[in-house]
């Protein structure tokens, strides 16, 4: 057996063990999807899963979003980091059942500004968490979710 084949076999065994342990293994292996972080039900747990502990408030982290969302199903959010060596940007919604909405790995050529659209079950603080040069920074903003339409 070649070295490469052996390594491959070890990987397969590892995936098999995960499957046996009850993990769902998708057809395409996911490089980064962090189940612990996405399953976190409290802000502390979510931050812990990131290894963030207590991130420092930073004016260099910005969250660009309207103060009010006409509908919680689609809330446009732009997350911006002005910090050098930004590696990761995450968007968290405090009052959602699962806090973490998205995490973006920022490559060296990528400008640390990402726009996404998130769901919000109710009015809540939305937090942008940034990992830059190994340290964590954050900022938060309240977005009001209004009841719209005729309610019928």
């Amino acid at each position: 057996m070649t070295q490469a084949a052996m390594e491959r076999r070890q990987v397969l065994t590892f995936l098999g063990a995960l499957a046996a342990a009850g993990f769902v293994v998708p057809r395409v292996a996911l490089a980064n999807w962090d189940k612990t972080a996405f399953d976190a039900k409290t802000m502390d747990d979510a931050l812990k899963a990131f290894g963030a502990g207590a991130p420092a408030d930073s004016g260099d982290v910005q969250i660009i979003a309207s103060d009010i969302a006409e509908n919680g199903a689609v809330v446009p959010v732009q997350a911006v980091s002005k910090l050098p060596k930004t590696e990761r940007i995450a968007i968290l919604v405090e009052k959602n059942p699962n806090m973490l909405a998205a995490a973006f790995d920022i490559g060296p050529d990528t400008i640390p500004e990402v726009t996404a659209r998130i769901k919000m079950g109710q009015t809540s603080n939305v937090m942008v968490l940034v990992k830059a040069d190994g340290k964590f920074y954050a900022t938060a903003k309240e977005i009001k979710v209004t009841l719209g339409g005729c309610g019928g």
Partner: protein
Amino acid sequence: MGNPMKIRASAKDGVTEIKVLMSHEMETGQRKDASGTVIPAWFINEVTAKLDGKTVMQAQWGPSISKNPYLAFKVKGGKAGDKVSVTWVDSKGDTRTDEATVT
């Protein structure tokens, strides 16, 4: 699998802006259908974007990303004619890749 994405990429002053619309239900797993049965979670959980073959963005998503997701970001470098490719993988293991040319 899945329906095509709509990818727009444009280069200006040494920066390429990439905008992607994806067709996906993004089911949270918390909704019920008319008969009261929980609709199982089903959402895109990884997105990878490449510019000229080089990975420039990797995103991990949870079910709190809106249905028919939109993602926009900017990359240093890139020029008209470069290829952009975007791949998503969802929680059922389905995947789809689409390409576009930078304008």
